[in-house]
């Protein structure tokens, strides 16, 4: 009998355009981006790194709530998002707030999400997204449905969803891809493989050598990308998007990346399960460092330019926090109000009771 696993696994090579030294090693695959667009990518990565640092500090000061650090994953998060159109639909996981922000979710609302304020989840006009999913895997099956909806309505748009390496173990992961594949629905499934699911290394999560190969069983395209290379991530997503809207079906994109920080700010200590050597190894692959080198060599980026972004980010974050602080506090009546389209009688009663209490 023929053995196939090894042959299949060998075909999943890591797609890279920009290497760790900031050199283009795959000229043919270089996406068609103007100088301004290239600079925009750098701008966004620097901004997002600052946002991460400030968010961690604000969390420690008790001024933000739930927060899952993003540093290290900018190439993966922003490269996929940059390939989207405004009408595309994002189904993020809890770490994917940056994609929402660059798709148009105002910063102050991202902060309100962190504080558990419902206004943080009220997507503004023109932003098509669900709020970050906390239940591992649930967004994958929903993405199949959103993509199907787009297909039925004849829209030339895609649904893009995100999970982590750990998320690929969930039944929903397979089921969502299989559904979208069966319907040839325009979906893009992203797995950000940051090597750990809280404390569990990806090697213990699955016997598969790559996560991209999990696409094979669903009968859809799968690709493994260097997630620290924003150009490769962008190019892969762009192509997946083209195929999807042309009716050629969904794609699974595995991005190889790393989270520098703790799992979330709720007391995780990564030294319990990760070595310093591994941290150092991945920091050498940093998406900002290599892209900065690339742009500097082209004369497109300078320290001065970077400092401008940093100052702008800090200023806007400050303003956004202020705006979040000014948002009216949630009341019990808000919770009741948001439960049903029309309040059933028992909630109407509670509503009256709490209205009276709150007006005191």
């Amino acid at each position: 009998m023929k053995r196939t696993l090894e042959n299949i696994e060998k075909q999943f090579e890591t797609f890279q355009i920009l290497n760790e030294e900031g050199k283009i090693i795959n000229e043919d695959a270089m996406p068609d981006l103007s100088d301004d667009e290239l600079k925009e990518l750098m701008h966004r990565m620097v901004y997002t790194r600052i946002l991460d640092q400030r968010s961690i500090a604000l969390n420690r000061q008790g001024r933000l709530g739930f927060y899952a650090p993003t540093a290290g994953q900018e190439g993966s998060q922003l490269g996929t998002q940059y390939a989207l159109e405004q009408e595309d639909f994002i189904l993020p996981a809890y770490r994917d707030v940056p994609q929402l922000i660059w798709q148009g979710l105002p910063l102050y609302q991202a902060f309100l999400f962190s504080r558990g304020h419902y206004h943080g989840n009220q997507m503004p006009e023109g932003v098509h997204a669900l709020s970050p999913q906390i239940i591992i895997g649930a967004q994958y099956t929903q993405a199949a449905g959103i993509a199907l909806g787009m297909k039925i309505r004849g829209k030339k748009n895609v649904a893009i969803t995100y999970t982590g390496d750990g998320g690929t173990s969930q039944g929903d992961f397979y089921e969502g891809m299989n559904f979208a594949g069966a319907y040839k629905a325009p979906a893009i499934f992203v797995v950000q493989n940051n090597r750990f699911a809280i404390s569990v290394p990806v090697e213990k999560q699955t016997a598969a050598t790559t996560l991209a190969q999990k696409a094979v069983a669903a009968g859809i395209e799968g690709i493994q990308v260097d997630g620290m290379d924003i150009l490769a991530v962008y190019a892969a997503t762009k192509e997946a998007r083209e195929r999807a809207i042309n009716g050629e079906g969904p794609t699974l994109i595995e991005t190889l990346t790393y989270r520098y920080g703790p799992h979330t700010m709720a007391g995780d200590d990564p030294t319990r399960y990760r070595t310093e050597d591994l941290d150092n190894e991945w920091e050498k692959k940093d998406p900002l460092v290599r892209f900065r080198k690339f742009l500097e060599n082209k004369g497109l980026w300078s320290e001065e330019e970077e400092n401008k972004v940093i100052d702008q980010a800090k200023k806007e974050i400050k303003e956004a926090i202020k705006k979040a602080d000014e948002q009216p506090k949630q009341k019990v009546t808000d919770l009741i109000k948001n439960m049903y389209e029309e309040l059933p009688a028992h909630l109407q009663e509670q509503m009256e009771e709490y209205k009276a209490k709150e007006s005191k």
Partner: protein
Amino acid sequence: MREITYLEAVREAMSQEMRENKDVFILGEDIGVYGGAFGVTRGMIEEFGEERVRNTPISESAIAGTAIGAALTGMRPILELQFSDFITISMDQIVNQAAKLRYMYGGKGKVPMVLRTPAGSGTGAAAQHSQSLEAWMTHIPGLKVVQPSTAYDAKGLLKAAMDDDNPVIFYEHKLLYKTKGDVPEKQYSIPLGKADVKREGTDVTIVATAIMVHKALEAAVELEKEGISVEVVDPRTLVPLDTETIIESVKKTSRLVVVHEAVKRGGYGGEIASVIAESDAFDYLDAPIKRLGGKAVPIPYNPKLEKAAVPQVPDIIEAVKETLNKRIATHA
């Protein structure tokens, strides 16, 4: 006696059993060096190794299914679900499989597994990490459902659960993990289906579960200052339920308040109230039964609203007073 925390009591119960019985092993997410989301299994992988303290891929359905399969081969798995909310993902395995296999195989086949999982609100973990869904489990014939409220009970009930040949759902309350109590060092077992009168009283019975046992006891102390004598009954296991202890208590006090954290509508309090309504204790009631439970809203993230969503000590005090001030109309 020695004092340890509820969390340590759970860990000790498992460790002692695992030293005695090689068939017992644990499986769950991040239970290895990480020690689980709340640290319950911390240190155990060092003692028992990764074969017996098994980190799993993130798949609650497969964790439950694997535990069932292992149990069918004679192993005695303990599975830990990181948050009890995720039981929804393993629901088919628990409801259609674990609960029914013995019955469908005519007794030739058993599923001796314990599903341990932290439940409840109060830690700022929001709508999908704070629920109390135990009533769902009690509705399924074939499962046993345990809800310890103290360190002593946790250790003894977990021993009984591990010894039990049926699937047992063992709910640990997150806010109780750090509470301390006297716990014997040696192994001991508290039979499933035996309620505990946590405080004796004569004016009113409060049947409370998990964290609400402690709130009821606090309320009882306050009420005593006003001359009201409260009896607090902790069922400890919902299935099987010790109806006798509850009925006897209500016959003695003639008044019943039931309190749990789970949403009141469809909550287990309805079952307890019905047990009384159907028993001869009904004739002893001097006031309508009062139920307290969570509001019918998802648990909010905001700490103040989170508290507002579930019964607090003042709510219990108010409910007791209301019960005492009400009388069932008697025919002259």
